[in-house]
């Protein structure tokens, strides 16, 4: 079952502060994703892999084309959706683990992770319990759970990010360098988590520079090639 279909997706940036220069990054791209499969984006640095991922998430506005997402049983075009719809899709259907954790001041790690569950109506205690479980699986010890992640190391922050991304059980996950700052042991945990998610039917798009991890999780590759810069 196709859960995500980017059709003729184009994305370019017009930099008004640099005299209006236009930089095209993606051109008429076609990507389909099925439930339970993991597609890894490949291509050189700067080719547009992260741009593609952000566009799929609605974080970047598509210049052209459609981004069809299976949301509540229907295929919905995210590129044409209004903000409230996009937020609903992100809440229920489309999850995103970015490369860097955006740190909210003062909020404890366990609350950062459990937020999505609480928002959906799960009781705070139950949600925290599940979040704590996931954090521990990612080797973030109990004593750190109550601390805001601002003071965590890069690797620890990434693991908090991962926990937050996986806890919601989203049917589609976008993972941007999920293991970049992690040691081997934690990389293994992540690979396991991805496999479990796939087994549940979760569809995944991943950017992964580490070839070993990529081989462990991806069912196929999707090549993103850099475009020639238009004048």
């Amino acid at each position, binding site marked *: 079952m196709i859960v995500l279909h980017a059709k003729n997706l184009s994305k370019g940036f017009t930099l008004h502060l640099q005299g209006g220069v236009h930089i095209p990054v993606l051109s008429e791209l076609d990507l389909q994703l099925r439930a339970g499969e993991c597609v890894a984006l490949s291509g050189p640095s700067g080719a547009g892999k992260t741009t593609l991922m*952000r566009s799929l998430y609605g974080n970047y506005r598509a210049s052209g084309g459609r981004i069809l997402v299976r949301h509540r049983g229907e295929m919905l075009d995210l590129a044409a959706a209004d*903000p409230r719809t996009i*937020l609903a899709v992100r809440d229920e259907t489309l999850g995103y683990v970015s490369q860097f954790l955006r740190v*909210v001041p003062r909020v404890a790690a366990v609350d950062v992770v459990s937020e999505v569950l609480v928002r959906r109506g799960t009781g705070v205690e139950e949600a925290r319990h599940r979040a704590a479980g996931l954090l521990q699986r990612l080797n973030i010890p109990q004593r750190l759970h109550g601390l805001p992640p601002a003071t965590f190391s890069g690797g620890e922050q990434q693991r908090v990010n991962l926990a937050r991304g996986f806890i919601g059980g989203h049917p589609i996950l976008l993972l941007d360098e999920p293991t970049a700052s992690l040691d081997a042991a934690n990389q293994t945990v992540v690979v396991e988590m991805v496999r479990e998610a796939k087994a549940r039917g979760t569809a995944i798009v991943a950017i992964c520079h580490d070839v070993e991890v990529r081989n462990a999780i991806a069912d196929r590759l999707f090549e993103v090639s850099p475009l020639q810069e238009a004048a």
Partner: protein
Amino acid sequence: MSQGTLLSARRVSLAFGTIHALREVELDLWPGEVLAIVGESGSGKTTLLNLVSGRLRPDAGAVWYRDPDGALHDVHAMPDPALRRLHRSDWGFVDQNPRENLRMGVTAGGNVGERLMAQGARHYGSIREAAIDWLEQVEIDPDRIDDFPRTFSGGMLQRLQIARTLVTHPRLVFMDEPTGGLDVSVQARLLDLIRTLVARLDIAVMLVTHDVAVARLLAHRIVVMQGGRVVETGLTDQVLDDPQHAYTQLLVSSVLHA
């Protein structure tokens, strides 16, 4: 005005003499959403907030409010008593300067309880309990319930103002630079508080700020204003990460990153 929007401004314009403070501004606010209006000084954002909340009249255009029964009201055609009642119950306004909203000669408890009493609350014990509860929610020591606000710090005053405003569970709260003038650490605490309360109580917020970081933290959607016009509007992270308009790009690129 589409089904379900809480507040809508349609082609609203306002000039002060030759100064066009607002030009054909349109915006919508949905229940439970936080909308940030950002722009530099003189962009018209505070004027817009004051106009939409009924404090100023437009030269052209209209502002519509949908009440809990679903009926539409033209905010500026409402009779004065009705608008005042609205401000005391369904709506709230958090001023940039809390001293303007609070009664400095009345205790913290009296300040928080006032809106309840204005609505007819007549049980002293319940009013006091509600005041204590709200002081706790805004992280003010409830032992200070009988203290006067003039003994409070800036951050505490702002939190007291928020308690005083939210005590009647308004559906819509207008906020004008709620963290303006506060120390950075105090700001962080206040923003976190606002974020939590707004989400928990499902309040719609229209928030004016010149600080893009505040918008990013609190808002679902963002409206960017320049020279009295709306130049860009949309999902907060989209507008801030992929700004389309030249001015938005300028605004975003000017933000200092910690």
